[in-house]
């Protein structure tokens, strides 16, 4: 699916994928929802011997994944997660996909039904550039945030870090770790609703669980 600006750590994979990979212990079971071309799954397989599965909306991405030897199916996060049994995976991962689903709350609930824990990353609409685009230039912050023009964007539900934390509160989801990533791919852990994170984070990565 869509990606926020592809900030890369030097020589490695996308920075949010790197953060996700660090949260996943070796040899566990991971379902990657919106797995794109399979970069994270392949990394987890090669580096951590993770038993990974993927769901991807775009057929081209699916085919690319299978050609890489990954176990990936074509499917839709909004409609196809109900097929999976409870707690079949240690982690359900949703990287840069939350903002593109029809019901982020329902998808999040499914993630924590299928996985014991969930890892979610998304572009932060609260970033100062997005605020500036609207406040100073009167332009949709969407364009500034993820590059797609507002009328032709798969990102139908962009949210701020504060929005996301509030949604988790409402759903009874516990946030176990939260990390903001700034425009230079520098990472900063934070707790609760951090004003700084919400202002300077280009994106955020959350580790979630149920009590």
């Amino acid at each position, binding site marked *: 699916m869509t990606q926020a600006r592809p900030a890369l750590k030097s020589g490695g994979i996308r920075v949010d994928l790197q953060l996700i990979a660090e949260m996943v212990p070796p040899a566990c079971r991971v379902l990657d929802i919106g797995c794109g071309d399979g970069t994270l799954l392949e990394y987890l397989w090669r580096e951590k011997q993770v038993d990974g599965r993927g769901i991807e909306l775009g057929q081209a991405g699916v085919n690319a994944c*299978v*050609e890489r*030897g*990954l176990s*990936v*199916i074509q499917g839709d996060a909004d409609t196809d997660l109900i*097929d999976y*049994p409870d707690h079949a995976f240690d982690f359900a991962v949703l990287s840069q996909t939350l903002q593109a689903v029809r019901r982020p709350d329902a998808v999040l609930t499914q993630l924590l039904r299928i996985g014991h824990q969930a890892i979610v990353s998304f572009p932060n609409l609260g970033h100062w550039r997005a605020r500036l685009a609207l406040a100073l230039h009167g332009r949709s912050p969407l364009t500034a945030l993820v590059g797609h023009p507002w009328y032709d964007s798969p990102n139908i539900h962009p949210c701020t870090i504060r929005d996301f934390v509030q949604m988790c509160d409402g759903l009874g989801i516990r946030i176990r770790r939260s990390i903001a990533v700034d425009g230079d791919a520098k990472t900063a852990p934070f707790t609760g609703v951090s004003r700084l994170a919400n202002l300077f984070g280009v994106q955020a990565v959350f580790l979630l669980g149920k009590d």
Partner: protein
Amino acid sequence: MDAARHAVAVSACDQMVIEEPLRLDSGAVLAPITIAYKTYGRLNRDRSNAILICHALTGDQYVLGPHPVTDKPGWWETMVGPGMPLDTERYFIICPNVLGGCMGTTGPAHDDPITGRPYGLTFPVITIRDMVRVQALVVDSLGIGDLFCVIGGSMGGMLVLEWATTLKERVFSAVPIAASVRHSAQNIAFHEVGRQAIMADPDWCGGEYQRTGRRPERGLAVARMAAHITYLSEAALHRKFGRRLQNREQLSFAFADPDFQVESYLRHQGSSFVERFDANSYLYISRAMDYFDLAADHGGTLTAALQGSRARFCVVSFSSDWLFPTAESREIVRALNAIAGNVSFVEIASDKGHDAFLLDEPEFFATITGFLNGAAEHRGLARR
């Protein structure tokens, strides 16, 4: 490529005879059973690199040619060979002729040992599961415990799914292509048209044509023509033939010769098919496909059928296949998701219809190559 082809270790068409009676799903008992099969490549020391290819309704064990009857190339030369997706330098490939077939494995054209005459319609009705039981006998006799992969298209895909259910502990990976978990009403209907065409041919002689020295060629040809349409797509037919006329400038206003190229093509398909296929085999094998219903045969649900399978699955469909449409492959995928199974699913964009699995489809080949490479790595098979 041709030079490389010669290097493939190909078995002569091997045959084995099983004397021990086999109880079939119908309750009938069959003995002895002759099984004809071909192998390609070499079995490794661990016996861990064996791939079983399951052929389709009118296929046979001649994956690579030349075919002994038609002298034509094998039916899956696009997929099998050195450096091909099913790499004979790396994998040991087994392809048996199915039970009920007419290329050497026991079928209705064989002699009944009790009467000494061809079985004809006294041959017991067989099922996909019966075919799998017989394939397993070949695998056993080769000293192979579990198969690295079971792969096949169309009816071959049904056989793959049956393996992954009935003999799930012997399947490391499974590739059902253009397949379904049950034969649809529409598909049963097309098969019935074919069977009625055969049985309406006076030369069928109530199934005892072998005794009279006649062959129901017209009926079998019509069955093939009707079936062949279902293997293509409207778009493919239009692209290939349109409304173009066959060797003529104008309509003939008669029936004897084909006016249209598509008619000529179908007649050719029919007449070349009868040279190599037995009419009663067609009845029995098409019946076995009609009876196939994986869920009904295994406790009523697909999830129950597949429960406990640890195989890596790669489900493949083709976008223009209306005989085994993508929706039916998706049903397999959903059932595997429900058991948190290890499944990949790829729909290949093609306008060539059901037959696309036999044709040159680069994305399809890349999918199979990648999937098998991944599976081989998980199995610890050495790289080429």
